[in-house]
């Protein structure tokens, strides 16, 4: 499984793709592939946001949002990234903008059953929600599962989104247990940040 470290450089102009250097929460999200090393003619690629977005479901799924939801997604990501840098507990800073989205149960390679709480980010006024799981063993790590737009007529977290979070977390933990989890090369590659988890 490929992982992307989500940091504010991705949403800046000029765009930056590198590992961030703060000691707060490190935000990682699953990707479908590594970035290409070279173009078809063998020239080294200068990565653009399009290239990163194409391998990262968290980003390209937001590309299909309506303009208002999309705007809220960017502002929400900005809020999360800036809060992450402080390293403080999420509710201490974000207060009502963060709450639990339910618990999910996953199975580790050694057969143990583990229960994890979904951290759900989202402002009341907006319908965009981001699901994440956090762990603080050595370093503080937040696994950002996915983003979705909440239905207008429901206050509860949709069961389908909880299932998706569970599936993503299970895939991430399987990759960790099988030692196949790796950051995309430009952010350190296979052994780049494995010590984070």
């Amino acid at each position, binding site marked *: 499984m490929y992982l992307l470290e989500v940091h504010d450089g991705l949403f800046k102009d000029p765009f930056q793709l590198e590992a961030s250097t703060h000691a707060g929460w490190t935000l990682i999200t699953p990707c479908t592939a590594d970035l290409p090393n070279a173009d078809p003619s063998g020239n080294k690629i200068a990565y653009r946001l399009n290239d990163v*977005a194409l391998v990262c479901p968290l980003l390209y799924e937001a*590309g299909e949002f309506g303009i208002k939801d999309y705007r809220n997604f*960017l502002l929400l990501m900005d809020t999360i990234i800036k809060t992450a840098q402080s*390293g403080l507990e999420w509710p201490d*800073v974000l207060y009502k903008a963060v709450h639990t989205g339910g618990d999910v149960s996953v199975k580790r390679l050694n057969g143990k059953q583990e229960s994890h709480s979904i951290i759900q980010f989202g402002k009341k006024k907006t319908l965009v929600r981001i699901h994440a799981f956090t762990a603080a063993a050595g370093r503080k790590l937040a696994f950002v599962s996915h983003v979705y737009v909440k239905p207008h007529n429901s206050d509860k977290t949709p069961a389908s989104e909880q299932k998706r979070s569970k599936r993503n977390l299970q895939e991430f933990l399987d990759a960790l247990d099988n030692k196949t989890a790796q950051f995309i090369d430009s952010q350190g590659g296979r052994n780049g940040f494995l010590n984070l988890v």
Partner: protein
Amino acid sequence: MDSSIWSEERKQNAANRFANRTQQLLKDSYFRSEKRRIKTGLDLAVAVAESKLTRQDVADRAGMKLSLLSRQLSGDVNLTLDSIGRICEAIGYEFDMVLRRATEREARQPWQQRHVRGTYTLTFDRNSTPPAKTQLPLEKSRTSYKTPPCLWQERARYVETSPANDHYGMHEQLLEA
């Protein structure tokens, strides 16, 4: 919106749309104002959380209602200088307005200057001579003392006069020294 069944073409289109929209929004002055507002509110929210005071205590000290404080810290309202000053005073801070070029890095807040991954702690006094290399671990000596003295003296002066622009994280070490 589960994308696991999307075609490659749809993913490509969505990724392009994402990148284009982001670039457009970053140029939008209203969006930039909103980001600035959220950043200011968040900086204050982190400072309040770090102060170990409850929000109610901070609201009382700042002479405002808890609901107003919460709204201000969430970035939903346009903060006035007066409100920022009252919140800062309530948690024992003062604030300055520091200007920078748009291309320069943001000024770091107090909590961002403490631990920076991948950098070494520079411990030196600019009025003293550096200790012998053997007294320091290899990494520290490599980082601290390969820099030409004139350069680190330059940096030290710069940091002393402008702590808010301390991109090298040296201000605290200077104070400690």
